[in-house]
């Protein structure tokens, strides 16, 4: 009957599919339990008015999202986060690439330079924030004293709404640059030196021409990776804000994750906080899609 009709080929295909599912099952289960499940729960929560500690919750549809559009704090945070990504990502990638080229071009102390630039990445940022707080202190901080010697009036780096984002961006660059340097140095060592020699023979006399024609295209995969990683690191900026400014003064340094934390765990509005997180996820996804569309096509995988 039915068994008689199944051909050996089909049975073999089914068996292979089953084996495939079986082999993928542990990873798939973990993926669902740790990533997809919570994300779905989060999106479901964002349609409710649940408050931490409240006995019940109500389905309120898109109300949370509608409120977001009206929420000055959230809009400031969204703008600040995008500014932060727009400033910190290009600067740290450009500077990081420059430093990596210089270190790689030099002959001595490569490991030492790599270690020095990588130090900020391995240090605990919350502890480093305290050091920054002292460095940038308006009256007793060394930065302002140095500027004072040059005749520049003291700047209230973290306390004034004009300067606070600039200061946070500068700390962001300091924090990310070492990471970029190390990644680019790894990418540079993978480029065979014969290619540079060949390019020189073929008429690429200036170092700039060799960089443009050989190094830069071959760094494509590394660059894509660096852009992706640094964009995500910038988007999730939180610890410097939480440790140094708490979003102040008057929300001037508010960022997405800090607003999410405040709404959820200071104001107890978990539903609203979930809606902010959903927006955050959407921004991350959009950015990743854009990068892959734009960059992946041009990347030359050797």
């Amino acid at each position, binding site marked *: 009957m039915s068994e008689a009709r199944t051909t050996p080929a089909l049975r073999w295909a089914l068996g292979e599919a089953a084996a495939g599912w079986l082999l993928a099952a542990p990873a798939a289960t973990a993926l669902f339990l740790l990533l997809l499940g919570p994300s779905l729960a989060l999106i479901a929560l964002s349609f409710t008015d649940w408050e931490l*500690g409240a006995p019940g919750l109500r389905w309120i549809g898109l109300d949370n999202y509608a409120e977001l559009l009206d929420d000055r704090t959230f809009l400031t945070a969204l703008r600040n986060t995008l500014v932060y990504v727009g400033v910190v990502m290009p600067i740290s990638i450009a500077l990081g690439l420059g430093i990596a080229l210089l270190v790689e071009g030099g002959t001595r102390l490569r490991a030492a330079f790599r270690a020095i630039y990588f130090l900020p990445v391995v240090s605990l940022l919350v502890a480093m924030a305290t050091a920054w*707080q*002292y460095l940038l202190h308006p009256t007793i901080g060394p930065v302002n004293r140095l500027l004072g010697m040059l005749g520049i009036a003291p700047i*209230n780096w973290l*306390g004034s709404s004009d300067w606070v984002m600039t200061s946070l961006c500068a700390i962001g660059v300091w924090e990310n640059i070492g990471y970029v340097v190390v990644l680019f140095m790894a990418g540079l060592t993978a480029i065979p030196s014969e290619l540079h020699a060949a390019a020189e023979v073929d008429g690429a006399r200036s170092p700039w021409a060799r960089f443009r024609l050989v190094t830069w295209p071959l760094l494509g995969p590394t660059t894509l990776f660096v852009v992706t990683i640094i964009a995500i690191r910038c988007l999730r900026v939180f610890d410097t804000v939480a440790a140094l400014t708490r979003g102040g003064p008057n929300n001037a340094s508010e960022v997405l994750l800090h607003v999410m934390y405040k709404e959820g765990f200071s*104001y107890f509005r978990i539903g609203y906080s979930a809606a902010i997180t959903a927006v955050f996820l959407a921004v991350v996804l959009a950015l990743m899609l854009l990068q892959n569309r734009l960059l992946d096509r041009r990347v030359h995988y050797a």
Partner: protein
Amino acid sequence: MIKTSRRATLGLALGAMAQPALAQSGIELVVHYPMPAFFKDVMEKVATEFMEANPGIRVRYPAPSPNYEDGVQTVLRQAVAGGLPDVSFQGLNRLRALTERRLPVDLSPWLARDGGADARGWSAPVRGLGHFGGIQAGLAFAASNPVVYYNLNLVRRAGGDPDKLPTSWDDLLALSGRIAALGEGTSGMHFRWGGDDWMFSALLYGYGGRMLTEDEKDVAFGGPEGLAAIRLVDRMVKEGSMQPLTVDAALQSFYAGKLGIFAGTTAYIASMLRSIGPSVELRTAKMPVINAARGRLPTGGNAAVMLTRDTARQEAAWKFIAFATGPRGQTIMTQGTGYVPSNTIAPTEERYLGGFYRENPLFRPAMEQLPISQPWYAFPGTNGVRVTEAIVNNLARVVEQRATPEVALADMAQDVKRLLPR
């Protein structure tokens, strides 16, 4: 030296076996507290002395919360997820939120025992600090009010008299302006307006104002008292040369001897004494009086809240609360922090704090201000923390000189009104 013999070893083993049985007959009390920077040493000492006096009860402290906001969050989370402590110390302005979620156990039955609360030092004003929604939600442990800290070295250099420190805001602002004019990176004053609405309420109460109307349906700080209070903040910037510093930055300046005047809670005393550098000569003074007849000050601090529903554990929890808020517990707390005791027996009796206040004048101003202290106002509904934020954000605009007091106050009133329960 103890000689190791077979009998001793056997005895040791038997003793070790008996230990868990003994522990089982006792109770392990889980107690949660906030702000370890202020309270860690005090809490350890309270627990040690309490366990000596009550051998059947063991006190265990899980990780403390960094501030009152985190403290109330922790407990609310545990109320949902399980793992509530038996006793928790909660900010006086957060008790209302807990009571509205029906978490605290009413302490009235225990207070009525043993000759009544008044006889044991918990007077009516003390009880009032922890009374919400018709129940005794908590019993005040540490109470504070705002005081003014001076660095006398800077006061002298600016031509001030250390024995005649300002008693009015006019004099204080003038002194602050003179200290700021000394140069070399000195600043005049910092009024701790950031963080929460407490110091703003100190000015508002000082003019005799109040946060909300009697029926709690509308804001009451939008009137003349509120305007006077926020104008005073504006004058601190204009006449006192106050910079828009974060609280941490201001404290660092003060420790380093670069800030002349710091106005904030009396609770800082012990940590100030630990942190100030050699160039600081510390003196505390009462807050300048604004309206001698109607002026009041807010009470900060925290209260012990009973959370366990288990009757056997409740007895042990009460014993701990009674010890911590009793004369001995309050003596430990006052000496280790800077807070004012919330037990009337402790400061009067010689064996507790009688001599301490004579010998430690830094602690006196807060004690002397107790008669004009009233509770820290807790906003109704679920938006309490956001209301606080709205007030602080609008104060920031004035301190940064980005809005006039009139505009900032109008926005503040509007923002807060939107957040009140309808």
